[in-house]
């Protein structure tokens, strides 16, 4: 049996299968699982949501990315030899703009005090080895890197599911799948962000990329059904019969290679998930917000402008949250925000020069204002008395690299929302340990960089904020989430106890 490879025929067969899934759209859809105010509900009723925004490259000078040092008002010792700090996130208004930093700048009507109070800016989170170019690190699959260095090449040997998929298949996160049409909405302008087992339910097979949906309209159609199309299907869905067909082949007494059996198992699992989606929705009224959702007339797949394309996808994410048809979204952007995207590689590698740095910083500012804040504002509407959809969500924007492209020390993390009350917000947190200056050979004269806390701890914090117990995602002896690799250049750079404490929620963040 042949199902992979680069042959076009194979790809088109996959597309065919996806297209056949579209049959589900004609079946009855009952949209809403109403979220409740976290304040009024016992903890088990929390239904936090997660949106991951990921942009590639990085290369933003820390002085451009982060607020001024004066915003840090409080210092405390995390472990002996490692001082961390925090302060209230405060915007400065300048004309019609407001800003937290040169990159985190937007129209004052967008970057409002209210929104700033729901954000966090986290500085000092490191992937503690040389990962080089990557797209998998954002959400925990460090193996998806380009092998630009020896550390990254080593990491390629241990692929892992990403945290969005951990959520998607966690019984603690989706306690009730009724109404959930998509466990995760993987979308955006670039892929390589979301990964899972080929058989997610059984956690078996190979780690595979979940390819993004690039058409906002297609994504919408997977989540919603046009009004008036509900009602009993004229015939029983055929998915169960197709499943039976696979089982017959899977359990045949004729020869099948082990790889073929695995592939059939994977396919069976995907069909089972399709069947779940077919029967998941049950009749019931939508929320008030959902009732306002209309089928979009504009499609990101036919829109050339990257900002607009991402906004259209984010609109579907907001709509799905409001209708309760999904609670997780991953949105990726590549290099579409610089004036000439084909120049990005050269720009990023010259981040330390004034011209390229201005272009890079400006591109990220555009992303922040046009995409990140755009969705935050759309979600900041009341879901239940006194609580907005944004409050029940954790939006997190991460970059591929820190200040120096390829390098993963101090990867910026910008968040909005409290994950249904799990997280404290309105803070600028600086986790860097300024007592341990980190300088690559030959980098003299550049901005100093400092080790902070590990990315595994950030990923674990997100999972805990989503209500997933550590026992579900941690592996024995590996605190937090992700590979425990520490690169040779990073060994000895973290104070005692920092690596070991990655199981815990990041300092200052627990509400």
């Amino acid at each position: 049996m042949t199902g992979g490879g680069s042959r076009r025929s194979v790809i088109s067969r996959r597309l065919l299968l996806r297209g056949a899934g579209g049959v589900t759209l004609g079946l009855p859809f009952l949209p809403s699982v109403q979220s409740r105010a976290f304040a009024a509900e016992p903890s088990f009723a929390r239904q936090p949501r997660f949106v991951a925004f990921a942009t590639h490259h990085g290369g933003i000078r820390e002085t451009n990315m982060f607020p001024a040092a004066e915003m840090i008002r409080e210092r405390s010792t995390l472990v002996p030899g490692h001082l961390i700090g925090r302060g209230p996130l405060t915007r400065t208004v300048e004309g019609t703009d407001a800003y937290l930093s040169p990159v985190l700048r937007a129209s004052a009507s967008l970057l409002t005090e209210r929104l700033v109070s729901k954000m966090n800016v986290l500085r000092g989170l490191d992937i503690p080895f040389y990962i080089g170019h990557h797209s998998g690190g954002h959400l925990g699959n460090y193996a998806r890197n380009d092998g630009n260095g020896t550390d990254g090449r080593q990491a390629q040997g241990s692929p892992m599911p990403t945290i969005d998929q951990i959520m998607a298949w966690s019984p603690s996160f989706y306690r009730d799948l009724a109404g959930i049409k998509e466990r995760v909405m993987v979308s955006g302008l670039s892929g390589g962000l979301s990964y899972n087992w080929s058989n997610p339910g059984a956690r078996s097979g190979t780690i595979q990329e979940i390819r993004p949906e690039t058409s906002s309209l297609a994504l919408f159609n997977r989540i919603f059904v046009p009004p008036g199309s509900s009602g009993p299907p004229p015939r029983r869905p055929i998915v169960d019969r197709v499943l039976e067909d696979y089982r017959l082949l899977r359990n045949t007494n004729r020869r099948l290679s082990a790889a073929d059996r695995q592939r059939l198992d994977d396919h069976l699992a995907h069909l089972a998930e399709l069947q779940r989606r077919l029967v998941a929705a049950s009749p019931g009224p939508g929320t008030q917000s959902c009732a306002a959702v209309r089928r979009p007339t504009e499609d990101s797949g036919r829109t050339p402008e990257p900002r607009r394309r991402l906004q259209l996808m984010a609109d579907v994410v907001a709509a799905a949250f409001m209708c309760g048809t999904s609670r997780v979204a991953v949105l990726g952007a590549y290099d579409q925000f610089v004036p000439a995207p084909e120049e990005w590689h050269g720009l990023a590698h010259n981040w330390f020069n004034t011209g390229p740095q201005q272009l890079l910083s400006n591109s990220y500012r555009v992303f922040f204002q046009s995409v990140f804040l755009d969705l935050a504002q759309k979600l900041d509407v009341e879901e239940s008395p006194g609580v907005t959809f944004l409050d029940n969500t954790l939006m997190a924007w991460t970059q591929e690299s820190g200040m120096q492209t390829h390098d993963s020390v101090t990867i910026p993390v910008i968040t909005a929302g409290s994950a249904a009350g799990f997280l404290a917000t309105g803070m600028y947190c600086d986790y860097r340990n300024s007592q341990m200056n980190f300088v690559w050979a030959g980098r003299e004269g550049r901005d100093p960089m400092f080790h902070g806390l590990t990315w595994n701890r950030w990923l674990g914090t997100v999972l805990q904020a989503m209500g997933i117990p550590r026992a579900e995602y941690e592996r024995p002896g590996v605190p937090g989430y992700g590979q425990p690799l520490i690169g040779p250049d990073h060994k000895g750079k973290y104070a005692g106890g920092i690596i070991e404490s990655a199981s815990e929620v990041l300092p200052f963040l627990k509400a």
Partner: protein
Amino acid sequence: VLGACATDTDPANDDSCLGGFIQRFGERALRRPLAPAELAFYRDLYAPSTGIDPAGLTDVVAALLLSPSFVYLVEHGAEPVAGRPAASLSPFELAARLSYHFWQTMPDRELFEAARTGALRTADGYRAQVDRLFGDARTQATIDQFFQDTFKLADLPRLDQRNADPLFKAFAGNDLPGAALHTAMADEVLALLRHHTWDTPGSFTDLLSTDLSFARAPELTRLYGLPPYQPGSPPPAFAAGTRPGLLTRAAFLVSGTASTRPIMKGVFVRHTVLCDEIPPPPNNAAATPPPVDARLTTRQQVEALTEVPGSACQGCHANLINPIGFATEGFDALGRSRTEQRFFDERGQPLGQAPVDTRSVPRIDPPDGSAASGPADLVRLILRSGKAEACFARHYFRFTFARWEDLTADGCTLERLRAALESGGSLRSMLKEVAMDPSFRERIFE
């Protein structure tokens, strides 16, 4: 879809009408006759319907198109192969493998009948079908796909992105690229490969050493200084040895900037032409490039950056990567022939020029310290090493079997393909003869 039996007024024939359809359509979709149990399965799926019901037919068609036997090329094998965990393919499996390999689609009626009648089991019958499939135009489209994948022709960058940059404008002069130039370059390579595969079947050596030009777009032929190639007429030729073979064609020389990229050219040859593994650069190797003098040639800049004695970069760059790229520095970043590199400032003002140096020790086989004075020598050393034929055979193996090779289990097949190229056999013959290899007709079950 069903024929007249579905539209006539006689309900008595509806059942046989439906059964006939499932059998015919199922046989096409699953690429083999349906077993009685399968026929019953799809009949049952239709069952809520009575008579001729479009909804029921929709379900049957959808189920067949979602069947694992349609979605995948399922192979159970027929007779076991003695001494190995393998089995020969059944005639219908073999027909599907042949058809999907050469045509990337399901078997046609004739091939299907050859499987049904058993002709495909005979040596003559099989050979006849291989000849027929290979001679069909659909195979040429498939082989085009192979060439495009192997030589990464779809990855060519657009070349007009810097047209507004004064430096690039000054560099390009009257040859400022249009939006389609990169496509014309890819087309030229494909035309060269097609010519030596189909029009005038040549050897692998011909691919790497031919002086013929297959460039058709005036924008490209102007860069070459040759008239356009007219299919059906003899191709124009470069002066002997000045631009030998594939590796000196613009598609493999351009960078999209005003500067050539010897490192990328070297890596391309190592990876794609020689199938060599190059270890990853040391961590953060690219982080801190030292400033270089704008009046140094690209080669001198690359040497200054990567060949510093004692540096971690030097080992690979000085020996394995850069020398191969240096050998084609006699062509600029638009693929034009040159003996000197011209320098410009950011405003496009000329700063001067310096001669380019194409001499190097490419170490195609690392112990081999033979010197090359330029592209002709580079090609000669590549061909002398035998590595390119082995690499090309490896690419074709991956394309054929849609998997990575196992150097132990697949060693004999790889060697047969390589030997077919090395002995001066035609490229075309090798591309076809893979179907005659025993491994093509069997399946390993582990």
